[in-house]
């Protein structure tokens, strides 16, 4: 079960934060800061997996944005979550057409919507891009 999904840029500014276990605002801010610092200190040639307190953290950098997933479980298949991050980015890319950090900043509600279509309750339940996107096109129409 995923505990949180974050998108944090290299300056430490959070662009998107979805928590699946309740944490107070100050806890969240500390967590995000620490994680981004740890990710920044790692090079390209190192593993994308970290351990931070009780969380197993999987991250990947796309241009200026770090996509970070944290889990509290014991037996985690890290590689599958890495693939999920890639899937998420590809979905966002297809929707926003060449997605960049600004797209997420200015369309945060839509980004949240896409994420909610893929992950709920900390479980990944949809990975098919077509299905996800048909939902968000419907959302655009309703607006």
């Amino acid at each position, binding site marked *: *079960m995923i505990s949180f999904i974050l998108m944090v840029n290299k300056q430490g*500014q*959070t*662009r*998107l*934060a979805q928590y*699946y276990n*309740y944490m107070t*605002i*100050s806890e*969240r*801010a500390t967590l995000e800061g620490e994680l981004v610092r740890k990710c920044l200190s*790692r*090079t390209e*040639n*190192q*593993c*994308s*997996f*970290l*351990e931070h307190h009780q969380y197993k953290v999987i991250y990947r950098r796309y241009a200026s944005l770090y996509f970070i997933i944290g889990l509290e479980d014991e*037996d985690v*298949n*890290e*590689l*599958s979550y*890495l*693939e*999920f991050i890639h899937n998420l980015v590809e979905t966002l890319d297809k929707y926003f057409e060449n997605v960049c950090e600004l797209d997420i*900043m*200015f369309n*945060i*509600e839509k980004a*949240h*919507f896409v994420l*909610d279509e893929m992950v*709920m*309750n900390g*479980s*990944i*339940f*949809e*990975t*098919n891009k077509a*299905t996800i996107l048909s*939902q968000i096109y*419907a*959302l655009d129409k*309703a*607006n």
Partner: protein
Amino acid sequence: MSKSATDVIKGLRKGKIDRTAFLTTVYSEIREEVKSPDLATKTNAIRKLFILALEGYDMEWASFHILEVMSSQKFSQKHSGLLAASQCFKPNSDILFLATNFFRRELVANNTIDTCIAINTLACIVNADMSKELLNDCVTLLNASKPILRKKVCVLFYKLFLQYPDGLVICFERLAEKLRDESPGVVMGTVNTIYELSRLNPAFVLFTAQALYEILNTTTNNFVLIKLIKLFVELAKVEPRLLKKLSGPFIRILTSNPAKSVEFEVIRAICAVFPESEDMLRIILQKLPGFLDSHDPNCKFYIVKYLGLVVLHKLIQINRDYAEEYRIFIMEALQSKDVTIRLRALELIKITTTNKSLIETIKNLLIEVEKPINAGIKEELISTCLYLLSLNQYELVEDFKWMFEVLLQIVNFKTSIHEAQLSSIMLDVVLRVEELREEACELSLNALEIFDTLKSEKCEALTALLFIIGEFSNYFSEGNLIKALSLVTKPRWELLNFHESVYNALSSCVFKIFIRAKEDGVFKACVKKLEENSVQIEHMESQERSLLYLNILTTSDKEKLNFVLKPFLPIHPSAQSLIFPPDALQQNFIVNDDELFTTKSDGTLEYHYYREEDFGDIQMTDQEKKAAKLKIKEKQMQDPYYIKPKKGKKKKGKKSKKLEGKVEEIKETAEVVKEEEIKKPEAPKKYSVNRAEPLIPS
């Protein structure tokens, strides 16, 4: 003209503004705006607040306003409200009571997309009461015509069940039906929920195994496959018959699926449920180099190497023979640049070191500690060293002198976290291993020469070293004894302001050295040192001890102090029970009584130190007393556990390799005592498919 959310973001992006000032202005604007009766303005305020939440501002005070926005008919406003709610509604807040009705309306509404976003938020914030109320509506949704709704509600069920476990019993069968739904999304959602439930109570979901098996063999979605594999591992724990059916699919997946993540999951599953199967292990071993040394362009080298190390860990736990082949590889991983891989390598080292490889391993670990690249994991490296040395009561160590040298080396690294463990290992090993004592004393003496560098917060290492040279100073030669004495009487000890325990150890040490030395010159030096200690050191306890020892030295007879020369040795924990209590000991004496004192009528307290009833009842004549004593003595003679007191009795210590002969004797008696107390392990609980069983076992 109030700012829109986009304006806020643009404002934040402008280079030269003061972010905090800008944000505070926006925040105060929001506080005003959000009270407006117009929904559009309110929504705008909530949207801005949402962005501010990313910067660390609290949203909770606006909960009621958020609720109003959520209830709007307009979709965009509703969406903003729901999104804000999912971020900030606390699990136990009162606002959720008000929200329940709102959600109920949304769940039965005709509009698909409204229901969808409502479910999204519900998954984040639902609590026990809401869960109870909304359960029925959710079950109705399971049969909705749109697959998207069915899918979402399937995943929502897990959260509902967590909050309201009783609901599980009612609804679970309906949920399980969805496994055979035609839409793959719904199936995936249901599999997810069932997997999470199986982690809590596998027996409960066991009846779905048939349907799950079919999905295992037919699905093409890798994520579903991984979840199913994990699920089956959980189920196999309670239903061993599943294992036969699983071996086929597992092998098929392992050999045919190209995705490394799936391969990894299957390997992990096999190690968990099929640890003895030769065929499976052979296939895994074939796959292992693919992990450890991969040049797959899709998957970065280090990631796959990390996975390989995890697999290796599992394999070695099954069968230690694999450790030999991969030893060099593990050492290489230890020196890698990646911290995560180094940590994994350390874990592997903990389980693969044998007594033959111990010396080599520790040497390598200590070399690693000195490298600056390892600053982050210096502590883990030292922990691993200490772990290996003290494993199973020093099972791996063959040369204790070398071990003591290693410990002293670690003392010089000055890590404060390990000091307590380090000093306890040092003392333990010197006390138990008789042959080590002479060398340990000499080594400690050398180490203490630079005592001023060993200062730390609690100075445990220093205290341990002082204890060793004091307690076992009878092993010192004359020259060394003088050297030791001059070391502990240096005035520098007081100047450096160590922790209190150091001064306590110091005075005991001085005292013991004198007892060994038996020379007058030594006497004067000891007395002088103790006098200084009693005056110059700040700590009260240390001063008192010095005075106490001083008094003993100056006033008592030298011969009477020879009790100090008796060795201080460890004894077996069951030794106490081997001693039969003397008949004079009143076994029924109540020491701790609730009515230890009573309040008299004038308000003062009267203390009772004993109760009259406990004494004086047993009136025995001398004859009777003699007879009773004889009876007790007879009982003692017949009792197999009673050790008859011998002259010059020594207490014996625990097992050390050289003292095996003496240990056998004690072992026999000790084990007899133990057997009675060992209870049989409980038989494993048999699971029946009792649907009424609570989900979360109490």
